[in-house]
C-alpha cells in the first residue's frame, strides 16, 4: 500500500494551522511548522503605476488650486454625495458625468459640453449651422436669417416633363414647397464622383401634378479632377412662398448638348447614378447682412435612381 501523505490529499494539504500565524504542512512527505507565508504581491505594470501616480497627484492638486475655484467646486457639490476633491479629479480626468439632483434633473459639467461639441464637429464646423436628420444620417446645414430653413425637402419624387418634351422622358429630382420667398442666386449639388462629361442642372416650378410650369436651366458643366465638390451653378431665379419647386441634375451625352428639357431637343440623356449624388443646396442673399451670401437650403440625402423608362 503506497505511503499516504501526512495530512491527506488535496492540492495543498495542511495540518492544524493557526491562520495568519503558524502553518503546519508537509514538504516532500515530511511535516513541518513554519511562519504563515507572506502573501506575494502581484507585480503591477508600468501603466498601472502611471495611473496610480496620476490619481495621487490629482487628489493632491485639489488643495493647490485657487480659492475661487475651490469655492466653485464646493458649491457644485453641496447637497450631493460627491466630495469637492472627487469632482475636481473628475474634471481633471475630463470625464463626462452628471450630478443627479432632486426633481430628476441632471447637471453636466462644462467639460462634458466641450466633449460633446467636439464630437458634433465631425458633422460640421461652420458657425451658425444646425443639425438636420436626412434619409441616411445627420447633416449640418445653415440657418437662414429668419431662423428657419426657407424651404425643405418634401420627398423624392418622380415628375414628368411632358409639357416640354415630346419624347416624354421622365425626370427625377428633389421636390419641395417654399415656405418663404427669396431670390435664388445659385444652387450646389453634392456628389462623390462624376464622370468627365457635361452635366446640366435646372430648378423648376411644378404644378400639383408635377408638370413643369417654369424652369431655369444652368449652363453646362463638365467636372474635372481638379474641381472641388460641391458643384455650384449660379442662377437668377425667384422662389415664391407657397409654390412647389423641384431641382434636378443630369448628364448630357456630350458637348454642347443643352439637355432634354429644351423643346427642340430629342436627344436621350442619362441620369446621375444614385450612389454619386448626395444632396443639393440653394443659395440666396441674406437681406439683413447685405451682399453676404448665405445658404438657406437643407441638405437632404438620397440620390436620383435610374431613369424610368418612358411610358
Amino acid at each position, binding site marked *: 500500500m503506497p505511503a499516504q501523505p501526512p495530512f491527506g490529499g488535496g492540492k495543498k494539504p495542511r495540518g492544524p494551522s*493557526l491562520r*495568519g*500565524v503558524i502553518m503546519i504542512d508537509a514538504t516532500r512527505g515530511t511535516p513541518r511548522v513554519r*511562519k504563515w507565508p*507572506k502573501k506575494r504581491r502581484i507585480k503591477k505594470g508600468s501603466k498601472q503605476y502611471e495611473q496610480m501616480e496620476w490619481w495621487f497627484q490629482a487628489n493632491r492638486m485639489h*488643495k*493647490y488650486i*485657487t*480659492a*475661487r475655484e475651490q469655492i466653485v467646486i464646493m458649491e457644485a457639490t453641496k447637497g450631493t454625495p460627491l466630495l469637492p476633491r472627487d469632482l475636481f479629479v473628475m474634471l481633471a480626468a475630463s470625464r463626462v458625468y452628471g450630478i443627479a439632483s432632486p426633481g430628476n434633473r441632471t447637471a453636466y459639467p462644462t467639460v462634458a459640453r466641450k466633449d460633446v461639441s467636439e464630437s458634433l464637429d465631425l458633422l460640421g464646423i461652420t458657425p451658425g449651422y444646425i443639425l438636420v436628420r436626412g434619409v441616411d444620417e445627420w447633416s449640418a446645414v445653415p440657418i437662414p436669417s429668419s431662423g428657419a430653413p426657407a424651404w425643405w425637402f418634401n420627398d423624392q419624387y418622380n415628375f414628368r416633363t411632358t409639357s416640354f418634351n415630346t419624347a416624354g422622358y421622365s425626370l427625377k429630382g428633389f421636390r419641395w414647397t417654399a415656405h418663404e420667398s427669396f431670390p435664388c442666386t445659385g444652387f450646389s449639388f453634392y456628389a462623390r464622383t462624376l464622370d468627365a462629361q457635361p452635366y446640366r442642372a435646372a430648378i423648376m416650378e411644378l404644378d400639383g401634378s408635377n408638370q413643369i410650369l417654369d424652369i431655369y436651366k444652368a449652363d453646362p458643366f463638365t467636372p474635372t479632377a481638379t474641381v472641388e465638390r460641391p458643384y455650384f451653378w449660379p442662377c437668377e431665379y425667384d422662389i415664391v412662398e407657397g409654390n412647389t419647386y423641384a431641382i434636378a441634375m443630369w448628364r448630357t451625352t456630350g458637348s454642347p448638348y443643352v439637355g432634354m428639357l429644351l423643346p427642340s431637343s430629342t436627344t436621350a440623356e442619362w441620369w446621375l447614378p444614385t450612389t454619386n449624388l448626395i444632396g443639393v443646396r440653394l443659395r440666396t442673399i441674406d437681406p439683413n447682412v447685405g451682399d453676404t451670401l448665405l445658404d438657406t437650403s437643407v441638405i437632404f440625402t438620397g440620390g436620383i435612381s435610374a431613369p424610368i423608362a418612358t411610358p
Partner: protein
Amino acid sequence: MAKVTAPLLSFGGSGAIAKTAVYATWRGVPYVRRHVIPANPKSAAQTTTRSTFAMLREFWKLLPTDGRAPWDAFATGRKFLGLNAFIGENMRVIRGETDMDLFIGSPGARGGLPPDAMSATTGSSAGEVDVDFTVPTGPSGWTLVSSVAMAFPDQDPSNDFGGPIVINSETSTPWDHTLAGLPDGVACQIAGWLTWTKPNGQTAYSVGITDQATSGA
C-alpha cells in the same frame, strides 16, 4: 509583514521567536514579520535619506505650536501622528535636493482655502523678513481666523538643522507679517498658510505656500 489577530494564541505578543519571527505592535496594530538582520550598506542614497530624516526630526522638535497645528489636524482620526505626516510629506519632496525650496509648511486639513498670493521680501531691519498675503473671500459661513507665516534659514536638507524657526500668526487685516529674529543677511525659506473656521465650527488649514527671501542685513 502580516497583521495578526491573536498572536501566539494569546491576547498580544511581542518579541522575536527563535530568530525567525518577530511579533510587535505599531500604533496598536499587532503584526508579525520575518526576523531580519539589516544589510546596512551605508550607500550614498541611504545616508542621504537618513540625514534628511534626522534633519526633519530636529525641525519638528523646534517647530512651535502654530507650525505643528496643521499637521496635527491632518493626522486627526488617522493612524499616524502629525510628526509622521510632516516627515513623510517633506521627505518625499526634499530628499536629494540641495535646498529647501520644496518644503511643505502645511499639508492642508479639512479643506482650508489657500491664499491668493503670498510674497516675501527683505525686511527693513536686520534679521527681518516681510511677508504679505492676499487673502480670498471665503464662502458663506466661513471665517478667516488668521494668516500664519513661518521663516527659517535655507539649507541643504541632508545637513543638520541649524534653525531658528520664526513663526507669526496674524489675526486681523491686513494679514501681513514682519518676521524678526532670523540671522542677518541670509537666504531664508518662508512658508505661509491660512486658518479658517468652517460653519460647523471646525478649524481648517490651507496648504502652505513657499517663497524665498533674504533677511535684512
